[in-house]
């Protein structure tokens, strides 16, 4: 093993970032233009090449149907989930159904799985790192929101593999941020990581010491992020425009994109300057063929009112996390802010008020996660480090029982890795097989939980109902990924599976995707020469 290089990658909803440890310190890896963060946008060009990153972002409007963004919102989800339906309504690219209720993106007549899309972002990052370091990079630690469920984690890990990376570990974003903050400082603190990203919100409470980074509790909302703030502005702009002109901009995906762009820009401006001037030239034409512009001014006060409930929602999640950790806000020593939207004064003020503490300064909310991931990668590859993480599982793990109920096997906020078993029995006489359905969530009703997958167990001794005893063991590994196995207690017959359903990728699929990913040529990459590019 000549090249023991491993990078840390923060694969974000809107932006991604990579870092590496050099001389004991994490350093963010810039691309050729000096950008430290790279838009998680993949644009399929008509010449068969693929453009990824900040340049691809420009194509969201001009090449909207072939430009995929916010893929993280869809990764590891089922086709029938609300998030997918919502995305179908607003995304300009085509979201279609694949096998086993999985989600596929249809671009230029080809279907891509979500891990394949994310793999292209990872490939870009890998190449950025390679050209910066002058070495091939094959290993990485990739971060996910703490509140990601098993499917989402598994799909992210698959994405890494497809991109030709050995994913050393999947770690939680807030945990990574805490690591970047406390590494090598010999602190002894209880800290909160408030992580509001583009599409997800996470809160983690950690106790950090010299060596130990222990997560006490984590909570989150995978349906809440900076995008929702943009949506509010878009809605306001659209309704304002509708009122003035009688034209609904939301009916057209092109206009919608312009609106989204304007919303995002306005959010940043309002946060920075307290006011935003919004101007979209030639956003549409009225029925008479006149070209219309969109103009508006957004004041901070107005914006704060628009998003007030979203901000409050984050504090409900904070309440939950503190309760799980059995702590009060007053016991927190420090608050770390992660994610672009935490730059907004409305968020910072809210956090200050809630925790009665000034959020820590001097931590870049866009880079801290990647830096923590790099530290973790470095720790795993070196034997010299004494640091270790004790993370928790964010959601309770359950098994479906008769009548639409579920039985909890592993409680949320249980430290991992761990395994637990429970004995189940058959519900009918002479039953030959049982279906074991695995859920994640906090309700004992199956319909209120997320189904992770199901597998069939057969070949056990056949007997009367209630007589056959089947031991089901759940294991959560250090990546937070779940493995389930069932054993017939009488015969010892065993079956096991790593549940994967919505990722929808079998081993063969992944192998095929790896080949396809290799063949894809990333446009505008200097290092592309190193990669054998196949003719389109």
């Amino acid at each position, binding site marked *: *093993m000549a090249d023991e290089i491993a990078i840390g990658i923060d694969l974000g909803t809107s932006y991604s970032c990579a870092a590496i440890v050099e001389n004991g310190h994490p350093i963010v890896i810039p691309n050729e233009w000096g950008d430290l963060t790279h838009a998680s946008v993949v644009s399929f060009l008509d010449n068969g090449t693929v453009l990824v990153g900040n340049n691809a972002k420009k194509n969201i409007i001009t090449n909207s149907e072939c430009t995929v963004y916010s893929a993280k919102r869809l990764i590891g989800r089922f086709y029938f989930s609300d998030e997918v339906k919502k995305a179908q309504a607003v995304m300009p690219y085509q979201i279609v159904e694949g096998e086993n209720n999985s989600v596929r993106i249809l671009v230029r007549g080809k279907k891509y799985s979500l891990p394949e899309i994310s793999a292209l972002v990872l490939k870009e990052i890998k190449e950025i790192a390679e050209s910066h370091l002058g070495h091939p990079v094959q290993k990485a630690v990739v971060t996910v929101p703490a509140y990601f469920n098993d499917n989402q984690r598994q799909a992210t890990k698959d994405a890494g593999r497809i991109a030709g990376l050995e994913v*050393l570990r999947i770690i939680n974003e807030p945990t990574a941020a805490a690591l970047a903050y406390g590494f090598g400082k010999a602190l002894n603190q209880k800290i909160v990581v408030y992580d509001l990203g583009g599409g997800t919100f996470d809160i983690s409470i950690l106790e950090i*010491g*010299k*060596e*130990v980074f*222990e997560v006490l509790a984590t909570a989150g909302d995978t349906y809440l992020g900076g995008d929702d703030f943009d949506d509010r502005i878009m809605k306001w702009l659209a309704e304002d425009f509708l009122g003035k002109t009688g034209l609904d901009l939301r009916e057209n995906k092109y206009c919608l994109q312009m609106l989204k762009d304007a919303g995002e820009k306005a959010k940043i401006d309002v946060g920075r300057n307290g006011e935003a001037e919004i101007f979209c030239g030639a956003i549409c034409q009225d029925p008479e063929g006149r070209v219309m512009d969109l103009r508006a001014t957004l004041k901070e006060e107005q914006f704060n009112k628009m998003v007030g409930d979203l901000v409050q929602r984050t504090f409900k999640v904070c309440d939950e996390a503190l309760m799980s950790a059995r702590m009060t806000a007053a016991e927190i020593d420090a608050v770390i802010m992660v994610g672009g939207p935490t730059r907004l004064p409305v968020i910072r003020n809210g956090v200050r008020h809630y925790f009665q503490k000034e959020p820590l300064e001097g931590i870049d909310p866009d880079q801290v996660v990647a830096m923590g991931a790099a530290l973790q990668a470095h*720790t*795993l*590859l070196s*034997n*010299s480090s*004494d640091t*270790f*993480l*004790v993370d928790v599982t964010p959601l309770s793990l359950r098994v479906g*029982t008769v009548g639409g*109920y579920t*039985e*909890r*096997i592993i*409680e949320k906020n*249980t*430290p*991992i*890795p*761990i*395994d*637990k078993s*429970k004995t189940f029995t058959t519900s009918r006489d002479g039953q030959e097989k049982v279906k074991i359905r695995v859920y994640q969530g906090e309700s*004992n009703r199956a319909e209120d939980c997320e189904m992770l997958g199901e597998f069939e167990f057969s070949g056990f001794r056949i007997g009367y109902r209630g007589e056959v005893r089947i031991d089901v063991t759940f*294991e959560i*590994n*250090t990546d937070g990924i779940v493995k389930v196995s069932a054993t017939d207690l009488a015969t010892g017959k065993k079956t096991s599976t790593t549940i994967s359903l919505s990722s929808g990728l079998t081993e063969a699929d992944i192998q095929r995707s790896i080949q396809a990913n290799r063949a894809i040529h990333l446009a505008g990459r200097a290092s592309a020469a190193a990669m054998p590019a196949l003719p389109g």
Partner: protein
Amino acid sequence: MAPPQDSSPKPPKPAAKPPATVTPAVKPSPATSPTKPAPPGVASPAAKSPEPTRHPAPNTPVLLRRTPASGSGPVAPPRVPAPSVVRSISGTPGPSSAGAAPGAAQGAQLEALLAAMEAQDYFQILKVEKSANPGEIKRAFHRVSRAYHPDRYYQLVDARLKEKIMRVYKRMTEAYYVLRDDAKRDRYIADIEGPDRAQKLRFTEVAEVETKMAVKKQAEEQIGTTPKGRQFYAAGLFELEAQRWSAAERSLKIAVTFEPSNARYKEKLAEAQRKIYEEMKQKGESFKIK
């Protein structure tokens, strides 16, 4: 059983303990580790300069010092070799050349530890007193984590050895998960001090549905002032659950005769009668058609 040995006048000890856990963290104390010269295969990897030797230092002394504290005899032997497993593993980044022998030896040691753990309760696994406070439990868990956290063996080539370490560590996490929670811990202590200790060494979560049902059932069964009333009421509830409405009605009617003013009895009786009526109605229709 452990309790007699774990002499309870421990309260002064917490004060003395923290230093015990902290001191070994000062690294240059490998000389104090008596387990150091343990496995034969370890000597070879000289590639790693100071790290391998200093690495086990925080682990070894702690584990040894704790041994007498938790007392019970059969536990001690696997505990001593364990740190040496840790040591040799962390000292061999690419031990494939070292051959199968040390791997097998370490494997055997871990296997012995795993086997010993099967007979240990969580207090013994974490090497804490039953009276340990949450802080002590946390420190104990961190101490074992330092020795067995899978991240420390990430580089290990031998997958089976890795798997064993993972199994050891998972049990430690489990112990921590139960002992750090007061309610779970109390239940666990009751379990392991009871007659079924051997079966209850691993904490079993009470089923959510079962607990809720049990509480409800118990509350229901408590309703009533006369033993006969309670008896027939319980029988009535049983029949209701089984959807044998007329049998339920019969039992509940008798219950009401014992306690005519019991509102709950009457309510359930009414429920049974309503069910019978509903059934009659459905059947009645079909009768008419005939």
